[in-house]
């Protein structure tokens, strides 16, 4: 008979041991899933986790790692602040889209002016777009107590429709021969997010992600606001007693996460994606939720989790080309990771005992 016993103090060891354990369990379960799909599990796991880092084409994949990790980290760092405070912004995907649209629209408005100010303005507009989209659930929650989970999520579907409309209509490339999609920022240098060091994948979004990690780390560890965020999440009544204004916290956390998601969208549309298209949204906003939890809602942890998750993307593509592994398998794999993480998280707060206590 297994029994659970609440620990008087959360376990320090398991706090960081659980993500590692979850990753290992996911590899085992994922291997079984790949075997069920008729692939050799060992080869599949190696193709996903080993080859991109140390294989023949690692020089290419390693650069891609930063490209994929940057938006995940940017978004997840923002989400983690809200999640810590018990504010559930799960519509980062929508804020990511809106950031890309706002930023791209500003850039395209300047086309073809070759001014240095264009890109910085686009960055501001991108952050603003994401912030604005996140303010809708924030204001509805503070004014009308409307559930921010549902509103932020439903707004993703709205944002996707706006994206389609932009690609088909308002932002469509007038010289694109009628095809949907905006001009490509790759051919408009003043508005492009190019690699800072060629071949490394290091673009401005990566820089922003690192800055976000450091800033969030300082905020959570040293700033009174970070303390208030943690307090509000753990004990809302104690937070009120400590003088925390819950509405202000909602606006702040939603705004920060929305702004960062918007930035991620802007850096993506001007860099790796290159243009506004109907299928621009690739699910980073949702995967970032997994990244945030996998990183234990800690900025540094999120940095590592983002890199790991980026690896599954790249490795997944690698496995798709080389082994014919369906790309959906990677999505299921990522979801599975979150399951295992949530399950083994129990070890942090509870002790598992076998048998009866005498």
């Amino acid at each position: 008979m297994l029994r659970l016993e609440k620990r008087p103090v959360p376990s320090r060891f398991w706090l960081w041991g659980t993500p590692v354990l979850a990753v290992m369990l996911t590899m085992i379960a994922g291997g079984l899933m790949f075997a069920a799909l008729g692939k050799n599990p060992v080869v599949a796991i190696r193709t996903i986790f080993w080859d991109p880092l140390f294989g023949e084409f690692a020089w290419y994949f390693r650069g891609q790692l930063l490209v994929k990790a940057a938006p995940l980290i940017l978004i997840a760092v923002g989400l983690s602040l809200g999640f810590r405070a018990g504010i559930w912004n799960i519509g980062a995907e929508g804020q990511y889209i809106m950031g890309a649209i706002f930023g791209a629209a500003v850039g395209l408005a300047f086309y073809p002016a070759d001014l240095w100010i264009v890109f910085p303005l686009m960055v501001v507009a991108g952050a603003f777009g994401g912030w604005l989209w996140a303010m809708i659930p924030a204001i509805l929650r503070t004014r009308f107590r409307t559930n921010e989970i549902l509103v932020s999520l439903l707004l993703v579907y709205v944002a996707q429709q706006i994206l389609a409309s932009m690609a088909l209509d308002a932002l469509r490339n007038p010289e694109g021969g009628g095809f949907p999609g905006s001009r490509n920022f790759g051919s408009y240098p003043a508005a492009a997010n190019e690699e800072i060091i060629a071949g490394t994948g290091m673009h401005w979004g990566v820089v922003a992600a690192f800055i976000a990690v450091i800033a969030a780390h300082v905020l959570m560890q040293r700033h009174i606001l970070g303390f208030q965020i943690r307090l509000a999440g753990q004990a809302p009544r104690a937070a009120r007693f400590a003088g925390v204004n819950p509405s202000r916290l909602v606006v702040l956390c939603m705004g920060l996460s929305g702004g960062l998601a918007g930035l991620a969208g802007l850096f993506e549309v001007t860099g790796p994606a290159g243009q506004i298209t109907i299928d621009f949204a690739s699910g980073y906003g949702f995967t970032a939720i997994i990244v945030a939890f996998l990183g234990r809602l800690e900025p540094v942890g999120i940095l590592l989790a983002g890199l790991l998750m980026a690896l599954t993307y790249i490795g997944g593509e690698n496995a798709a080309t080389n082994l014919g592994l369906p790309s959906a398998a990677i999505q299921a794999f990522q979801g599975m990771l979150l399951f295992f993480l949530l399950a083994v998280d129990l070890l942090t707060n509870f002790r598992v005992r076998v048998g009866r206590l005498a």
Partner: protein
Amino acid sequence: MRDLSHDGALLTVEGVTKAYPGVVANSDVSFRIASGEVHALLGENGAGKSTLVKMIYGLVRPDAGAMTLRGAAYAPQRPGEARAQGVAMVFQHFSLFEALSVAENVALGMERPPRMGRLADRIREVSTAYGLPLDPDRLVGDLSAGERQRVEIIRCLLQEPKLLIMDEPTSVLTPQEVDILFATLRQLASEGTAILYISHKLEEIRALCDAATILRRGKVVATCDPRQRSAHDLAEMMVGATLTPPARNRAPKGEVALEVTGLSVASPNFFGTALRDVSFAVRKGEILGIAGVAGNGQDELLLALSGEVRSAAGAVQIDGTPVGHLGPNERRRAGLVAAPEERLGHAAAPDMSLTENALLSGAVRQGLVRGGLVDWAAARRFAEGIVADYDVRTPGVGVAARALSGGNLQKFVVGRELSQSPAVVIVNQPTWGVDASAAAAIRQALIDRAALGAAVVVISQDLDELLEIADRFAALNGGRLSAPRPVEGLTVQEIGLMMGGAHDLQAVHHA
């Protein structure tokens, strides 16, 4: 070996032991209770009374020992089995559902409830017969604490129990309501029902019970006839030491430090009580005791004074400055500190360390934050100071608040507020669920702080506590505060009337 025959005994408990990780709740506990007997289980908080009755009610299974009921082996696996065999229980923290009706609540506590219509009739019938009238269609959330207890009692009585367990039943009643409850219990006992009465209030036990089993740290320390013993004797057996009552401060009082005028605020909770036109003033060096049955606006009063709920600016004044419109931190700056009732979750964050919990309310007055950044070293020193000054037993200040015992955490919470050299102190239920020595230390600390010139407001359900430390006394009833009166010369009858008397109860038993 003790005699195991059951002549006359309804329930016997023999050598029962129950251990939890890190604590032995009951160790080799034995006692017996006969039909028609009112038997007291006496002990202070943490003595193991609740664990013991949970085993009798089938909620917890003993590690060792045996029980018999009417001579047969008795080992209920779940409360349903206990109920089926005639054991019923009235809980201290009610096992009620606010959004459900009285009848639905009663049905949930019965094994085979009759149809709803029939049940409603039975509730009316039985509740009137025992002088505890109840409307079966009302939502429990709309009932007062006393009425809620009636729901629990009626739920038990409908099953015609052989043994009725009552866990601290009088903490939610006015003195007049206590008299009526006792009359009901005596009536039940005379009809042959055995009553196991759990309390730490000595006078009640001496007034009601035929026998008493006294528990201390999980062990039976004595069995006696409480009517033959003095309250002082019983207290010594219960606590294991003689406690000296706190020394009062008789110095003359200073100027008015806290003035509340016409304070009316809605409750933040749906089933809460709104404050209506509350007015009082407290002078420097004075302790105002505010009594009242739970749910009459105590929580709301604390929130309105601490600043968690705001009101008109002039409704609350500190040293003549209006603060009613200000939040908690601005009021702290003005000199007001507060300690809410609920330790875990309101006064302190359960999973945070003592250092973090010290920062929680100490940030403003102790200067623990500079330019937005937390000075963790200073917060740690502040926490260590509280731990040292208020004798908080803890391995260190890095420990999570929930790892501390109730008494130690309460000493930390009250100490945290008192050590900020406040001008005004508000505490709600400062010794609720706290062991006797910690309670005595907290009361003394409040008196000492008043002696240093603070105006202190103590909101408490414990009348003895208020009579012991307060200079003046007022009572909350339905969100209204009675006019404060000096404690000296006040009788229990008068206090009961200030608390609302017997509300709508009729004294059927006196007929």
